[in-house]
């Protein structure tokens, strides 16, 4: 494991910002820290960089505990949430800063060559002499990245690298970051609260909530097999249906399904999670949750159908347009909602 966190805790006063976080990142891997605002993502990055000291636990880089190594000797590339470019320096001076302060200091020609190479990499040639204020958000972002790469970091940390950018630029830079990562093969951790971004760019995703890790896995694992209710709700649309769990059986209105993993529970409350595209509609008698169609939205080739069950709870269903047309349903008609895939967790709704 190239970068490793072991049981890291961090509190600010009596507020626990990070609790018992353990994480291992392989060399050359790009990992996303995904979580809502305030879940401790930035704090975790700052702990890795050494800008924050953990109350407990260890940080290892390349197998060595870095507790005794000062921030400036850790050789970590950090791209800050708001870039933190040096406002009185030009683009070239910003990018060359890490080399300029190095001891022994490389020659001016060597620095210039490296700066040129990096600006080429981030597609910012010709802007060497501009100041940060004369750049767009996306350009600042790329300068910040070039500046971090200049010191040939052992680990690259990016804090919401695309947070302040509009959707279009975001999408472009996202692909570009992935490509850059594939070319340089650097070990990286980036923070985001955009699930689409995490799923698209990262090799593995770490979902965080209130300072804890909820789940670690590949984008597919995270999306298809959420380990906790939180992950279910945080990633993508999901319907939450209250149910009862009794000796290995979960009962919903009009539906029972086996939950052998909870065979120890008897008549306990639970919540069933089902994604809109895992729900189907059928007419006539049979299993399924009785619902009434409320509202239909056409979204290109697919259809989103809003339905309500007997308890007044809204259920969203998503299906192809052809399938919807074949059903011959419309607002006000009754149907059965049948889940293809569903996951039950114990707990109150």
């Amino acid at each position, binding site marked *: 494991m190239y970068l490793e966190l072991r049981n890291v805790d961090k509190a600010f006063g009596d507020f626990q910002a990070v609790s018992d976080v353990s994480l291992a990142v392989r060399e050359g891997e790009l990992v996303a820290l995904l979580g809502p605002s305030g879940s401790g993502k930035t704090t975790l990055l700052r702990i890795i960089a050494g800008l924050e000291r953990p109350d407990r636990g260890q940080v290892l880089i390349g197998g060595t505990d870095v507790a005794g190594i000062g*921030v400036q000797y850790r050789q970590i590339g950090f791209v800050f949430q708001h870039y*933190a470019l040096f406002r009185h320096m030009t683009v070239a001076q910003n990018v060359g800063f890490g080399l300029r302060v190095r001891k022994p200091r490389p020659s001016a020609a060597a620095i210039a060559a490296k700066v040129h190479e990096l600006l080429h990499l981030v597609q910012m040639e010709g802007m060497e002499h501009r100041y940060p204020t004369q750049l767009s958000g996306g350009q600042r972002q790329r300068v910040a990245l070039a500046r971090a790469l200049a010191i040939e970091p052992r680990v690259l940390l990016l804090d919401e690298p695309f947070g302040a950018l509009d959707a279009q630029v975001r999408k472009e830079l996202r692909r570009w970051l992935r490509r850059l990562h594939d070319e340089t093969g650097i070990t990286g951790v980036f923070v985001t609260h955009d699930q689409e971004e995490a799923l698209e760019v990262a090799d593995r995703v770490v979902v965080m909530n209130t300072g804890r890790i909820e789940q670690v896995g590949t984008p597919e694992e995270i999306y298809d097999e959420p380990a906790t209710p939180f992950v279910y709700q945080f990633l993508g649309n999901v319907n939450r249906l209250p149910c009862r769990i009794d000796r290995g059986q979960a009962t919903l209105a009009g539906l029972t399904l086996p939950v052998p993993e909870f065979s120890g529970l008897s008549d306990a409350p639970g919540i069933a999670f089902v994604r809109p595209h895992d729900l189907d509609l059928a007419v006539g008698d049979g299993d399924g949750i009785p619902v009434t169609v409320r509202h239909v939205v056409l979204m290109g080739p697919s259809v989103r159908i809003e339905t309500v069950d007997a308890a007044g709870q809204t259920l969203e269903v998503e299906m192809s347009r052809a399938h919807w047309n074949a059903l011959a349903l419309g607002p006000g008609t009754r149907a059965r909602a049948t889940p293809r895939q569903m996951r039950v967790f114990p707990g109150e709704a």
Partner: protein
Amino acid sequence: MRRAVVAPTTEPALVQWGLTLAALGFVGIFLVLPLGTVFAEALAHGPAAYLRAVSDPDALAAMRLTLITAAIAVPLNLVFGVAASWAIAKFDFRGKSVLISLIDLPFSVSPVVSGLIFVLLFGLQGWFGPWLAAHDIKLIFAVPGIVLATVFVTFPFVARELIPLMQEQGSEEEEAALVLGASGRQIFLLVTLPNIRWGLLYGVLLCNARAMGEFGAVSVVSGHIRGLTNTMPLQVEILYNEYQFVAAFAVASLLAGLALVTLAAKTLLEHRFAATRAAAGKD
């Protein structure tokens, strides 16, 4: 840009003119007239008398003392101001709010009281008086006392200017420099100092103007020994009390000239400062 947004006023012309005249009249009576008087009185008996007055040995001694005092007080408060605002803006520590209030103390205490504090501490009858006398160290009614009082009175200028500026800038750039491998000294010289240079210069200017013009505190600790412990403001007072008006106003005109230069420099700096601040934007 602002001109395009703000609608032209719709007040009657009389009100506009009235207000403008009132403002100009006020400035004229309370600022321009006294300043003009200083120069007029100084030159009342011609340039020769003026030159004689400003080259009088006592006047020269006063100028030298004022320059020495400023030359010691300003650098001291520059170093202190930068250190204090750095600590206050970039770190969290116990007693931070106490430190901020203490920095303001010299502003809230009357300068005469400040002077008296030093007499009380270091005067012959003061707390440390006997000890100082025993070791043959003279602070009060001597140059060191004047410097001490001036340092105290001009203490807040640099820090007051820098604290809000540094707080606004935050410490992200310093952190970025640290991660990139810069040492503490490199961070200060390459990142912090360039970011605060205009504010710093501005604070130093104000500090210097006050250091040279301070009267109250210095008057209490000086003892008014002619040619020895008189600064320029004290010299002006003595000459005036002795009805040597030309001489008094001549020395005063030098102080006034200094004030004008400071004002011009300040205005210039404010322009630069505002420009760089605007350029730095929200980043």
